[in-house]
């Protein structure tokens, strides 16, 4: 640490660089033993063992849900779940990935809810009747790698609090782990996707300023301004760029107005 020599070269790349003196631990990939440095994620440990992913790996950043994984530790009865790209390996960890799980997802037309005359909760009942058969076992909540209270968003759906369910399920990465463990055979995450879109379209208030701006764009208001800018010499454009006013950081949205209102 106190090393004073000038650093010019950086350790880089994506291939794992085990920290100095990393301890090697046994790790069981679908039953086969491999020795891997501790502190790796499951995903990097699998690659360290020599596998090249086709399925089961997407974003590598905990957001796409491609890398759902179940694991146990030898000598421990408890079953755990996580995302392979986000979960750190431990000694004696036994894993299997679940790169795909069949889910129920009925088609629908978001613009046409005539079947239920626009009653959103009735629409949910029509498409996902199984949601109402949740027995409240809580397995989904215990399984969710995003720490979402899945059981609770299902309960909110049952109760008709769709907005609540939409927000509660918002962090869902659609990995399917909850559905794989549900004794009531519910595909929680597809139902939640449906509910979020209902809420986004029908329950959140529309952005009035956006609506107005869309009208202005459609009227062709900005085309002339943009054409003029497009034709400008770089010096002129640069001048406009440097002189443009900056909305203050702490201004409330929709309150501040610039001096130069000509091109709004």
């Amino acid at each position, binding site marked *: 640490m106190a090393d004073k020599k000038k650093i010019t070269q*950086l350790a880089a790349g994506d291939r794992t660089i085990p*920290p100095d003196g990393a301890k090697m631990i046994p790790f069981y990939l679908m039953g086969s033993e491999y020795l891997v440095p501790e502190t790796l994620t499951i995903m990097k440990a699998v690659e360290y063992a020599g596998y090249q992913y086709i399925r089961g790996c*997407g974003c590598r950043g905990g957001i796409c849900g491609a890398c759902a994984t179940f694991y146990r530790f030898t000598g421990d009865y408890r079953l755990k779940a996580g995302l392979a790209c986000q979960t750190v390996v431990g000694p004696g960890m036994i894993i299997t990935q679940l790169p795909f799980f069949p889910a129920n997802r009925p088609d629908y037309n978001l613009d046409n809810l005539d079947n239920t005359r626009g009653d959103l909760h009735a629409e949910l009942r029509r498409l996902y009747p199984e949601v109402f058969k949740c027995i409240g076992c809580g397995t989904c909540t215990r399984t969710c790698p995003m720490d979402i209270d899945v059981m609770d968003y299902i309960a909110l759906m049952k109760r008709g609090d769709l907005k609540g369910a939409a927000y509660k399920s918002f962090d869902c990465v659609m990995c399917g782990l909850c559905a794989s463990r549900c004794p009531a055979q519910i595909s929680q995450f597809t139902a939640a996707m449906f509910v979020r879109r209902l809420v986004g379209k029908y329950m959140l208030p529309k952005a009035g300023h956006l609506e107005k701006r869309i009208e202005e764009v459609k009227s062709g208001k900005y085309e002339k301004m943009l054409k003029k800018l497009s034709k400008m010499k770089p010096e002129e454009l640069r001048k406009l760029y440097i002189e443009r006013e900056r909305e203050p950081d702490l201004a409330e*949205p*929709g309150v501040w107005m610039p001096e130069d209102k000509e091109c709004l």
Partner: protein
Amino acid sequence: MSGYTGELKELIKKAEATRPHRVERARRGEHFSALTMEERERWLKRYHPDCKNEGRKKVGVGPNSGQAFPEEVSLLLESKSILDPESVILDNADYTTDVLIIGAGGAGTAAALAASENGSHVILSTKLRHGDSNTVMAEGGIQCADQECDSPYFHYLDVMGGGHFTNDPALASALTNDAPLTMGWLEELGMMFDKLPGGRMKVRHGGGTSRKRMHSAGDMAGAEIMRVLRDETRNRTNGINGIKVLEFSPAVELLTGKSGDVSGAILYNLETKEYYIVRAKAVIISTGGFGRLHIQGFPTTNHYGATADGIVIAYRAGAELRDMDSTQYHPTGAVYPEQNVGLLITEKVRGLGAQLLNVDGEEFSFALEPRDVESSCIIRECLEVQKGIPTPTGRLGVWLDSPMIDALHGEGTVRKELPAKHIQFRRYNIDISKEPLLVYPTLHYQNGGIKIGENGETAVKGLFAAGEVTGGVHGRNRLMGNSLLDVLVFGKRAGKGAAEYAKSIPGCSAPTLEHVKRFGRELKSAGVENPVTGPLLLPDYAPPHVKKRQWD
């Protein structure tokens, strides 16, 4: 357990010591002065990785022959086909469609919906699952000039200034003019934007913006956009304008007609190892960026499939590229803990007030410089000023002082505004609302790409492109929030353009691989010895001790 090591904890104390004073100043609206335009240019020239000459290589063949690109890119542009074009029999097509779209991220999916709406049957082929892409990873948000104090005019100025005025003006105009239409479209599709109770969009600043126009959906704007678009695609699989999705089936080559126009592609089923012939009247390439080429050894924020495939196959068919020597390094990639290396720390963290600090806990730059400038500032502080913070695994970084956010906006703001980041570090016992993050620039975005017109058309007839795979919209530097916008605006435009083109031609021309044969001959006459095989499709992260035993 892990968290920060003892040494790092000691260093954090220095940042804590200067924090109260920095927070005071930030409250008064005072900040480290931004660089002047001249300083910006000087800093970029001296410290930006793009400006290093080592690691570059001239391309010997194709439309950009003679231009120098990062070696990793040039080698792939000069690669030979996976297939032997002489022996492939193209008589029977496995699929026939109006519009074939290659790559199902944001751009490809928007294009599929638009092409379908314009009457085309669509095949959407993709390498991983539908939506496993860079799009799903975008956290910070999407730009759109919809506030009263803003307009496409100012958005345009910011886009051009951010790109150092190297952008294609027509593309920047289309981008900023279509932005409100695109946002309205997303709202109609049921996307849950962050809104104030009356419906007004929550907006923030981003690096290089003059008005607050960054729209968000928690800290997962891209994931929300992607899952909404994908969900809508699934509702539209049937009918003559249905969308058929083929997953784990990357394109490995385009097909061309006698006159060089594109008439389909060859897909490769990664699992069964079969090749499929798809005949199409028009093809859209939307395969995204090249982060997984790890240019100059940098870690990357990109998803697993970001391997420049689209560029490689389009180049063989004659599509011209631009700005391929320009790469965006995101200033703030995590360098600690090792498990999070390369992980993007969204610009939102700085937008909310977190500052960048050196080993002494001092500010050394304005935190909201354009990305390339900010990256240069960090590289300079670490390598030139030598005030970086060394990690136990031999990396260097600077502090990103996230605890400032709660200090400025109230307890709990970090958890509320950055839930995913909070979780990702809590896993390693780091509470980013109380301890700062260690960051260094990471390979983030492909600035250049296939040259397109306003409707995604390329130099090759029948071939369209949209999204990160294209160049020109952002010039040589992109501002945060303009890429999600880009992929949707030009995805939709290309979808419509391709559908109209498909309608305008009687049928697809008989498919050949003539362009691949010709390219092979060019490689030979240019003296390219032992070209690698491309496209790359998947990166290989097996460690050296394994590679040594993989005998074939």
